């Protein structure tokens, strides 16, 4: 039978996983909430960040955490270029077009990575981060604590950026009422570009963490994008703190499904929840607030 400690441990592992889920999906949710673009290349930006961190570690022994800013920057550049070259030109056409466009970009990037870095699966391993710590029979690793802290820092950092800084406020009001923002003198097209780039940066932060906690490969992006999607809908478009809660619900739900039912129903839990939320409460758990 399952012991009580195991249930607690499982619960905790789900929460940890959930917080990281929130980080992985932050960029997608942000771009969807602000620019109204569902960025299907989100996962590929994330994977790019992961590869940057991996190569820095392998080539120069740079600690992947120190590589975070560079990884984020590169993903940001990728997002910036994608927006300037492609998305900007069809910003005003139908939602479907931007969807197909970003899907195409995703295919392009994933295959580019395949050509550049082969199909090998990469794991960013740092020994001291993998050391377990034990509290009353419950185990966590240094890396887990660290990645949770980073995730929380990024989520709250973004939240404060949006509510406190001038640029953040401009991004926020543009999301709420685009015309009103333009009439207040905000260059809304610039805001779109900035927001999309930030989305890329956020994705780029997730990559190294994904590489540390799990692994990266050229094709890993799509799975992340789909997960990010589920979370965005679960949280409700535009709710950034809501993402944290939604991430935990998903992470814990998956973990407990495994503990009490069976591992093969883990994914089913996520999608069933997704459909249920869509049908019962399409605005998500935390509605539309920024």
């Amino acid at each position: 039978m399952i012991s009580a400690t195991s249930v607690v441990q499982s619960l905790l592992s789900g929460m940890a996983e959930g917080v990281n889920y929130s980080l992985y999906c932050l960029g997608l949710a942000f771009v969807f909430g602000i620019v109204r673009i569902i960025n299907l290349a989100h996962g590929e930006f994330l994977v790019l960040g992961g590869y940057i961190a991996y190569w820095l570690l392998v080539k120069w022994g740079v600690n992947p955490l120190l590589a975070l800013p560079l990884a984020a920057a590169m993903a940001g550049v990728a997002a910036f270029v994608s927006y300037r070259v492609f998305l900007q030109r069809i910003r005003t056409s139908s939602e479907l077009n931007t969807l197909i466009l970003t899907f195409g970009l995703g295919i392009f990037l994933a295959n580019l990575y395949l050509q550049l870095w082969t199909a090998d699966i990469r794991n960013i391993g740092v020994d001291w981060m993998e050391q377990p710590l034990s509290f009353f029979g419950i185990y966590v690793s240094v890396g887990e604590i660290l990645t949770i802290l980073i995730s929380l820092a990024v989520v709250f950092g973004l939240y404060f950026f949006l509510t406190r800084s001038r640029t953040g406020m401009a991004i926020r009001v543009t999301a709420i009422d685009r015309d009103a923002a333009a009439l207040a003198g905000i260059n809304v097209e610039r805001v779109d570009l900035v927001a999309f780039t930030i989305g890329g940066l956020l994705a780029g932060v997730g990559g190294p963490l994904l590489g540390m906690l799990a692994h990266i490969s050229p094709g890993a992006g799509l799975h992340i994008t789909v997960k990010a999607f589920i979370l965005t809908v679960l949280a409700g478009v535009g709710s950034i703190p809501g993402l944290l809660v939604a991430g935990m619900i998903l992470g814990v739900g998956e973990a407990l499904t495994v503990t009490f039912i069976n591992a093969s129903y883990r994914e089913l839990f996520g999608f069933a929840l997704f459909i249920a939320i869509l049908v019962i409460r399409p605005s998500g758990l935390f509605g539309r607030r920024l």
Partner: protein
Amino acid sequence: MGNLTRAFVSERTAGCIVTGFVLALPFLLSFNPYYTSVFVSALILGAVAIAWNLLAGVCGQVSFGHAAFFGIGAYTSAVLVTKWGFSPYLGLVAGGVFGGLGSLIIGIPAFRLRGPYFALAILGFAEVMKLLALNLTWLTEGSLGIMNIAPLPPLEVGSLKIDFYASRTTNYYVVALLMFAVYLVVYFLRRSNLGLAMSAVHGDDETAAGIGVNVFRTKAIALTVSATCTGVMGAFYAHYVRFLSPDTAFDGYWSVMPIVASLFGGMSALIGPMAGALVITGLDEFVFKRFFETGHKLFFGLLLAVVIVWAPTGLLGNRVGKRSEGDKR
């Protein structure tokens, strides 16, 4: 001048060109089995794309999860044929029926949702179906998949025996036939009063309800017909490839590529998705693969992006679409 070109590429002309092309293609390819089989895939995709476009282009409800109906159709037929000895021809029909029924399960709750949310609900449904196929091992063999699915039995017309096991060409013409059947269903549906209602719903739910359209029923019919056609194609796929696993039957390919093909060909023309499917397949097969055997998908992704940005109405979209508006003026 403008009017002349407009008159030249009417929906009907475009339809005739594509029909002629499809019929002549095996001759153009000198019955080369490889290319024929490539275009069998293209036509399966084309048919699904036409069906998808009934929902999206005509009725305005975009789905991201047609793989659900494709997979349901494929599994229905495969299970009936391999486990209970049904005739594969009956399997095609059953695949359609179950595809349609499946669409109602998700459609009834999902019709309250709009735009991307509706699309996402269907996507979720496709994933759930895939996971069920994976876990209901007693029915679907789980991840091992169903192998050795019977091909369509040979047809005997007088002394002529049409075989579907070895020949790709016969399969090609069967799928061409199915595709035109799907096209005709969609074509006549759009011409009917229901089609008008769908166009009204495409514009706006409330306006449509305001002029007396039963919005729910209209959407349900569009989805069911679309899913039924997709289910039939799925069933055909099962007997053509003769192997099914949850990953192949519910592959995201069947959700995404119909959208891509439709956008590529143009959503405002009924024949657009078909043309799109053929052109995409052709480009990928004859152009990109020649340049770059292992990296051809890279071009494919780039091409998608380029087309969407610089030719957003698709190949046939603009002309045929504008024409119907021009008529009224």
